[in-house]
């Protein structure tokens, strides 16, 4: 019965040490690029961790791979594409924009639009009776019949 690894809480995998000093590149600028890339890659064998945070051996392999590719002179985008082509969409913590994820990326905008439309239509329904227009000729006639001579609009 080990299905329920998680408690009701934030499940925290053991991430004592992710990046170790031995893995790091001597060039701080290149190392910073490597960190930025690996923090957006998912550790494929972990519950929900980035490659940068995980101490799983697969994550370590990926960290080394990314750094090797950077040393070879690849650009950030080329390195990401390389990892993406090898491990698929699942490795990207920022899902790629494509047919299957259009709804996901559009979700906040759609929610705002739908909500805005709802607010607008509700407001229209509500404001309409709140600001009565000018009296029609017929209404003036009725008022006059009731003895109100000067109906102010």
């Amino acid at each position, binding site marked *: 019965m080990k299905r329920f690894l998680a408690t009701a*809480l934030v499940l925290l995998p053991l991430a004592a040490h992710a990046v170790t000093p031995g893995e790091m590149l001597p060039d701080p600028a290149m190392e910073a690029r490597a960190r930025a890339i690996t923090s957006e890659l998912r550790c494929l064998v972990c519950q929900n961790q980035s490659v940068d945070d995980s101490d799983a051996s697969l994550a370590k392999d990926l960290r080394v791979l990314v750094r090797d590719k950077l040393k070879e002179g690849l650009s950030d985008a080329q390195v990401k594409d390389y990892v993406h082509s090898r491990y698929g969409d699942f490795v990207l*913590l920022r*899902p790629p924009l494509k047919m299957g994820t259009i709804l996901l990326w559009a979700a906040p905008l759609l929610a705002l639009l739908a909500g805005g439309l709802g607010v607008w239509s509700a407001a229209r329904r509500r404001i309409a009776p709140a600001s009565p227009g000018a009296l029609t000729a017929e209404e003036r006639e009725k008022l006059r019949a009731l003895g109100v001579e000067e109906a102010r609009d």
Partner: protein
Amino acid sequence: MIVETGHYALVLALALALAQFAIPFVGARINDVALMRVARPTAIAQFLFVAAAYGALTYAHVVSDFSLVNVIENSHSLKPFVYKISGVWGNHEGSMLLWVLVLSLCGALIAIFSATMPDKLRADALSVQGLLGAAFLLFILLTSNPFARVDQPPWEGRDLNPILQDPGLAIHPPMLYLGYVGFSIVFSFAAAALIGGRIDAAWARYARPWTLFAWTALTLGIAMGSYWAYYTLGWGGFWFWDPVENASLMPWIAGTALLHSAAVMEKREALKVWTIFLSILAFSLSLLGTFLVRSGVLTSVHAFASDPDRGVFILGILVFFIGGALALFAIRAGSLPVGGLFSPISREGALVVNNLLLSATCATVVIGTLYPLALEALTGEKISVGPPFFNTVLIPIALPLALLMPIGQMLAWKRGDLGAALQRLRAAFAVGVLAAAVLGAWQGTPFLSIVTAGIAVYLVVGALSDLALRAKGAAGFSFRRLLGLPLSAWGTSIAHAGMGLTLLGLAATGWGVESILSMKPGEYYDVGPYKLAIEEISPRNGPNYSEVYASMAVRSGGETVARIEPAKRFYQARKMQRSEAGIVTLGLGQVYAAIGESHADGSIDARLYWKPLVTLIWIGALFMAFGGGLSLADRRLRIGVARRAPAALPEAAE
């Protein structure tokens, strides 16, 4: 025997829950006051019986009764006493029992504090609460019995997961559940109002204190959990947009929206239909979160499909209650009267925009959390939706919301003057821009941190200047007037300022300093404005673990200002390692250190951090909760207490 008594108490609680559902409901339909009044005693009795069951399980954990599967799998005779108690909810069965305990507590609280409520509304609300209780008690008894025994008790248990053996765990889940499940009260009230067909400002007056109560508890629960992650993880991450975290964030956002719309409903009788909808939504999201966490669906869609008893059961509960409430809503919402009118530029208008932005945020979190599950179930495609997605799409919604908060506070009800409101916020704008400029000149990057910090400072000043302006009478600022302001005004300003503080703490994460290195004992290494050196590395034994710790000196300007002891712990029972960070708070920032592998030359791998203003993230949350508490203490909201005395008279005459 105690264990069997507990099990039996749980069965009796189920019977009571069913009675609590059926009798008052029938009473309310046939207008029989005697039947309706069965609700209160049964709700209290149900709570007492669940509490008895919970007590029995706690007892079994405390005395290490290894004839119980639950105790074997989650306890150890050497485990410290506190974790024997908190270990009760550190597993599936126990945490579900805690869930039901809080649910029945909510029922009992309604029963106790509803003296002034109309009989019918109370009967229907407690009836719904009873049905909820029955569903979850049945779930526990049929699929997750914590009282299951084994034939051959082992000598020793398998211990609790070391990560869960922490003081943070002792407070986090009960607090979280109090909030999460606390929204069931508002849910029941909404369902009762829909069943009875009467929804007015009085309803909002009954429902709002409970919303505040649940929201305050949830705020503290989430903050606690995030701080726990921060110091347990070993590198100071505090929020990961993990589905399990999102499960608690979704009801929090919906609850925040509800808090504000209920205020409009109470003061101006407007937004009634929407408030009822949010009341249903907040608890529905709690149920959704429970399903996500408890069904195993997060580990893998396939794991869920291959072993579905629990998941399908909770899914059934979820569909029944959410579907039922929404169906009721759909049937009744049309016939609800339209409430008070207001101009778009008004406090109400601002709160509508607040609700719009919060709803979009909530929808985004829900969709981001469920999307990968749905996509995999439908197409088999696997994607990850991680922090980069949530940060990218939510920051553009959150920052405008923060900008709006003080403006909304400054607008009058019904018809406001935007120009005047902005004018009154001149000082706040100026201070915010100044803060951003100073930080920009001092730190430079990242740009987002500077903008966020500027908005955060504006928010704090703007929220508090509302109080200052209100205290300013014709004869200038009056201290007495300030103290005389209603507690709910104080609550609003303090909670909003708290949000600003949290935002400032979040912005400051951009200026943190990280250093990953091999430290040689005795040598000093720079971390931000401080220097750290290892003075000693040695082993030591705890009650159920052994550890290697490094004693580090933290120096500032040649003087040792603090000592920290990051450690690596090894738990024998589970053969698991856990890193224990060394943390010291200096000003509002923290120096944070964690150690790793040691090398032959005596050096040790370490991660050192300087995290400026980081404590503000949680201090801000404390302010938010404090603001919630203040509003809750406002006389106007304590109607149950304030009006009980006169209400008792006609009852005595009966």
